[in-house]
């Protein structure tokens, strides 16, 4: 089963402490070694982003930054895992690192299961 982890936080959180970055690097390395992480990436500030929206039959394009958003997606990772519980366990460990190395920081990891071939294929 494939899962996408979306990490969300306030945009003006500031630069993460080095200890956190090191700990995340270590956790990612472990996940790669465990054969579970298939992709990951950090996202640039919303100042560099653009929203293309369709609403009431109109398409509008809006450039960032999107200061009105309380929390934005700051990064993502894609995992191949056996179960949702394994995904939750992974997210717990990831947030545990934030708690430990960045006191006062607030944010969340959203776990989204991705559709796989089994969801499109013929019904069993």
């Amino acid at each position, binding site marked *: 089963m494939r899962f996408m982890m979306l990490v969300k936080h306030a945009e003006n959180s500031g630069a993460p402490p080095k200890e956190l970055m090191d700990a995340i690097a270590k956790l990612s390395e472990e996940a*790669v070694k*465990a*054969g579970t992480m298939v992709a990951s990436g950090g996202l640039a500030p919303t100042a560099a982003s653009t929203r293309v929206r369709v609403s009431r039959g109109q398409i509008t394009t809006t450039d960032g930054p999107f200061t009105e958003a309380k929390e934005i997606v700051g990064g993502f990772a894609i995992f*191949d895992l056996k179960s949702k519980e*394994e995904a*939750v*366990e992974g997210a717990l460990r990831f947030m545990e690192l934030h708690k430990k190395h960045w006191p006062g920081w607030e944010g969340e990891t959203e776990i989204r299961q991705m559709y796989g*071939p089994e969801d*499109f294929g013929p019904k*069993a």
Partner: protein
Amino acid sequence: MTATDTHRAIDAIWRIESAKIIAGLARIVRDVGLAEELAQDALVAALEQWPESGVPDNPGAWLMATAKHRAIDFFRRKKLLERKHEELGRELDAQQKMAVVDFGSAIDDDIGDDLLRLVFTACHPVLSTEARVALTLRLLGGLTTEEIARAFLVPEPTVAQRIVRAKRTLSEARVPFDVPRGDELAARLSSVLEVIYLIFNEGYSATAGDDWMRPALCEDALRLGRILAELVPKEPEVHGLVALMEIQASRSGARIGPSGEPILLLDQDRARWDQLLIHRGLATLQRAEELRGALGPYALQAAIAACHARARTPEETDWPRIAALYDALAHGARSPVVELNRAVAVAMAFGPAAGLELVDALTSEPSLKSYHLLPSVRGDFLFKLGRFAEAQAEFERAAALTRNAREHELLLGRARACAHGSAPLEQR
């Protein structure tokens, strides 16, 4: 968190941690079977305690510490027993004494080496292939006996017994918990790769109606392969196998039609290929190619799969390159099936006459005598050359040989088309 939630969390944690715990313990106790039992004891303790106490902050360390205590208890009991034996004039087993002394520091050392030892032990040639598969899934994949049984369509007691017997065999044969070196490494590594690919193919051959545990074997095999690739990053064949599995797995969503019928590679909707897996597969293949030495059979097969993955349409397929890769594959490991595939690639690259020449050389091959793809491929070449009567006979022969009902129908359709000297409408 309810007790059920906790149990599910424990399942997940076990999946993540069990191989590392078993591997770490096995190095100390020098017995994979015992290591697994000690790890299981720790799991039982977690199942008893965590619903009350909550999941500890570092559950992996908790499990390891608990298993370690069980190991110490085990050795204490054993030592006591041995002391009694000593009174009877026997000597303490030096190695086990060492093991107890070594205990504190040993567990914290690099876990990677231990995992690698565990891989080689679980796939040791002293074990039957079935035993290797079961033990690998159990010790490294963290699967339960029941899950393995479901995935391989065998009764649970059969798998349980297979595992018990395998552990006993390892212990009786005194298989060292070690990574093979020198010349032995290549042979032992190929045994490991064979086990992983077998697990993958078991999952890949599962059809739509099968229990989801079966297709999940592909994921297990991929995970094992990726772990192995990180453990021995300089072995090109490991990357080759991982690349092959990634690219094959990328087609999972496209290879079975709405009513469960298999869809041939060239007829698949390429938009349904998983681009993330293709991307990973191509990158992994590149890692294999960047290492020194000629490509081995897995890397060559991956390179062939990559040719298909890179082609946006079937027409863009680089058939001359595929034919050349099959040449290299046949050079290293000549087999009639490889030869038949080579003939198909050659026909696609250089025309049906060239393919027919290769296939004709195979018609006397005893191992292909009842292989329906041989007359089917030969029929296809003859058809393309306009030799319809001969083609019809070949398609009819192929239809009689296949055990797959849908394929049977398809082949008879092609045979009928030969009578008209044209392709049936649904055929390309």
